[in-house]
Structures are given as C-alpha cells and as structure tokens.
C-alpha cells in the first residue's frame, strides 16, 4: 500500500491493520511522553487547498507524535491563489523532500491524480477531495464504532471487523465525501449500511451501492440500527434547491429530541449498551442534530475527534514504513 486515496479500494486486511495500529496509538496520548520516534527525519507536507483547520491540525498532531517534520502549505495567500497549477505546487514540495503529502482539495480526484502523476514520489494521503472521499474520517468512524461495539460485548477489539453492526447514515449523501468513504469501508468491514435522505440528496446511481436506502428517517430508525451517523447539511443546500426549508429538513431528517427518545431505546446488538450517535462535525446544532442529541451520553462525537489523531498516526506509519517481502522468523 503506497497511498491512501479512498476506501473503495482499501483491502479488509489493510483496513484492519490501520484500526489495530490506531488502537495502540490511542494509548500514546495518555502517556507522559506523547511522542514516538517512528518517523524521525521524515517530512510530511499538509497541502490544503481548502480550509479545514480541524483536519489539518489532526494530521499535524499525528505526524508530530510520530516525530516527523511537518510543513503546512495552505493555498490561501500562496502562489496557488495567483494561478500556480497543482502540478507546479506539488513538484515544488517534492523538490523540498516531502515523504508524504496529505492533500485536501475541493476537486474530486485531486489526490488520485497526484498519486498517478510523475510529479512526486511521495506517499499521498487523501484528506478529503471534493465530494469523492475522505478515507481517514471513515477510518476514525470505524474505530469509534468498533470500540463501542467491543466494549459493549466485553471483547478485545483488536483484529475484529464490524460484522453484526447495522449503521445508519443520515443526510446529504450526494455532496458528502464522508458518506462515500463510510459506505465502502463499513461494507468492507462487514457492517450493514443504511442511508436515510431526501431523494434530492442521494446521488443518481446510489441504487447500485451495497446499501439499503430509506427516504424516511423514522422508517430507517425502525430498522433498529446500532449506530446513527448524522451528516452536516451545508447552508448553501438550504435555499430551496434540494429541500424546501431548513425547518422542513429538521422535521423530516433531523435527529430531533423526539427522535432522540427513539434512539435512546436502541441497543448495541443484543447487549444492554445503548446505540451510538456519530457526527463528523462541524455540527449545525438545531438543524440536523439537536443539542440534546449531540451532548447525549450516546454521542461519540468527541471520541471521533480523539480517534482522528490515532487513525492518522496509523495511516502515516503504514504508508511510510515501506514494505518488502520479509520472511525472516527471528528478529
């Protein structure tokens, strides 16, 4: 595995390796020395063509905890805003000795293009490309789901996938890279995926996805999901083009206090533990999720943030530790 571009092509084995590594990495933040020497002397470039302070900081923390040197390249105020091409920017960074390029871009496919090009030899990590994918977000969601499920079942999460789980993703699927990455990853890990959204916010062609589609959130909740993942609704969708009003959206697809009462009755598998509520953030409180739901004991939203660093450490470790066939039994 040279790059992490999407979850659609991510093998079950590699996904588990990332989750198992991340599981160990979560312990690092509780140590006195919150740093590992793994990537000492190596350079990770955060190449952000789109503002996302949260994701950039998460990647930066991950790289620094692995002792890598981190360079942040933000398109704002740089030569990119003066018309420099992606190619020239990347070649410049490559010349500076980047070992990994973490790229965030508003164009779907930008990470894949970079990986396929001869502009750089660096490992490429997709930190969100347009409305395509956001694989590390899906991985941290999967880590959160696995930990919740394992704890409820009193099992060791290590080596385990998400078989047996039913996950409901609610909201703006068509514009969501998080949703796409989750659909593929959760399926690869054996979970059953349900989507609930207005038809206008589901991509044409979604019927070919390995998911169950609901146009009613209430109907979807009756299927007793183990976890409910609410997606952010962008303000620009609310102008009447995709659904009539924000109020109607909240009434029909929001995790309101009334629906929270239903979700409180849901359980993780056959255990007594309550089902999980996730949101990739940032939240529109009162639109797709009520304040009470966001702050409920079932909410894993802050865990998701914490798991983001661990997952990104795992990804950087996996990509920058070059593999070659190694059969030695000792040492």
């Amino acid at each position: 595995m040279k790059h992490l571009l999407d979850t659609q092509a991510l093998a079950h084995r590699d996904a588990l390796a990332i989750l198992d590594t991340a599981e160990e990495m979560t312990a690092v933040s509780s140590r006195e020395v919150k740093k590992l020497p793994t990537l000492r002397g190596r350079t990770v470039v955060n190449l952000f063509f789109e503002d996302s302070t949260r994701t950039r900081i998460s990647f930066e923390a991950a790289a620094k905890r692995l002792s890598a040197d981190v360079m942040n390249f933000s398109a704002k105020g740089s030569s990119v805003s003066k018309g420099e091409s992606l190619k020239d920017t990347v070649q410049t960074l490559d010349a500076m000795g980047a070992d990994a390029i973490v790229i965030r871009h508003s164009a779907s496919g930008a990470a894949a293009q970079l990986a396929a090009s001869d502009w750089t030899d660096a490992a490429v990590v997709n930190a969100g490309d347009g409305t395509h994918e956001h694989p590390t977000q899906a991985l941290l969601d999967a880590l959160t789901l696995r930990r919740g499920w394992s704890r409820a079942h009193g099992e060791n999460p290590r080596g385990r996938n998400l078989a047996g789980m039913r996950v409901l993703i609610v909201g703006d699927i068509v514009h969501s890279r998080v949703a796409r990455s989750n659909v593929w990853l959760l399926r690869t890990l054996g979970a059953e995926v349900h989507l609930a959204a207005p038809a206008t916010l589901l991509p044409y062609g979604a019927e070919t996805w390995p998911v169950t589609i609901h146009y009613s959130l209430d109907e979807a909740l009756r299927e007793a999901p183990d976890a409910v993942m609410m997606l952010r609704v962008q303000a620009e969708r609310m102008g009447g083009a995709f659904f009539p009003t924000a109020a109607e959206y909240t009434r029909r697809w929001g995790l309101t206090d009334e629906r929270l009462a239903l979700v409180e009755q849901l359980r993780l598998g056959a255990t007594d533990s309550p089902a999980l509520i996730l949101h990739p953030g940032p939240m529109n409180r009162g639109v797709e999720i009520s304040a009470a739901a966001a702050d409920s004991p079932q909410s894993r939203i802050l865990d998701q943030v914490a798991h983001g660093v661990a997952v990104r450490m795992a990804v950087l470790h996996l990509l920058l530790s070059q593999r070659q066939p190694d059969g030695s039994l000792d040492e």
Partner: protein
Amino acid sequence: MTRSPETATVMTAADIDRALTRIAHEIVEAQRGVGELIICGIPRRGVPLAQRLGAKLAAIDPDFDPVASVGSLDVTMYRDDLRNSAARTPEPTQLPARGIDGRTVVLVDDVLYSGRTVRAALDALSDYGRPQAVRLAVLVDRGHRELPLRADHVGKNIPTSRSERVGVRLAEIDGLPAGEEQVVIIR
C-alpha cells in the same frame, strides 16, 4: 510433524521448559527480593515466554505477583529498520499500573541476534519511565551482534551463520500442542 530436510531441531519442548526454569532461578538469585521485579515480554514470542517465567518465579517465591508484575512492551514504533521491512502492526503494550519507575525490568525475547530489537525496547522503556535497572533474558542467543549489548540470562547459545534462520515455535503463537514446541535452525 514433517520437516523439510533443511530444518534441524536444536531445542525440544522439554529443553525450552528446562531453560526457562533455570532462567527463573537465575533471576531470583540476581535480585534481592522479587517485589520490585517486572517481567516484560517483547511481542510477539517474548510475551508468552515472559508469562511462563512469571509463573515459574511465583512458584519459586510467592512474593512475586505473576499477573500484576508481568507485562508486554511493543517496540514496533521504535525500530530503526522500519523502512527495510514489511509494514508492521504494533502489538499491545501492557505495563503494570503502578509504573516502572525505580523497579527492575527484565526484558524477555525469544531470539537475540543483531541486538536492534533490544535497543528499540530500551528506547521504548525510557518513554514510559525510569527503571532502577533493566536486564535481558532470551531463550536463544544466536550471535552476530551489531550493537554493544549482551543478555543477562540465556536459555541456550546456538552458533549460526547469517544465512541461517532461527525459528521458535510456541503453543500460544503458532497453535501447536505444547509437546511439539521447539527451536529449529532453517538453512
């Protein structure tokens, strides 16, 4: 169990058990009181060996707590050869809740070869605290050290050439019946 002609058994299950018993006695003799002792296995095969040593220590001296004082220390993220080998998934690190400061830590591994794993373990250990002393116990020392390190307790010295490989097959890791455990040289 059929073995390819290039494989030679150098320790049997009984040899392994005897060696661990002897090492347990040596550890007790070298240490004034086992109360401050921590036995810490290096994944993967060092971990079951550490657990067995812990059980033997408890049998010799009931002051030793084979649950609270036996742990594991993963060194994957501290290795200096990550770029030359397959990407490794780290194994769990579990150290006693009261920490390692001021205590004697015995690192346990199956095979001592270049010494690089032990070097990584020493680095890892220092990120968790400051032990009073660190000792090293290995089941097999096959020579060819690349660093100025030696083991304090050795189950068996096995001279090898660099082209040979040493295989330690343990019930917990390799899924064998206990009686079929062995150490082999693969040419």
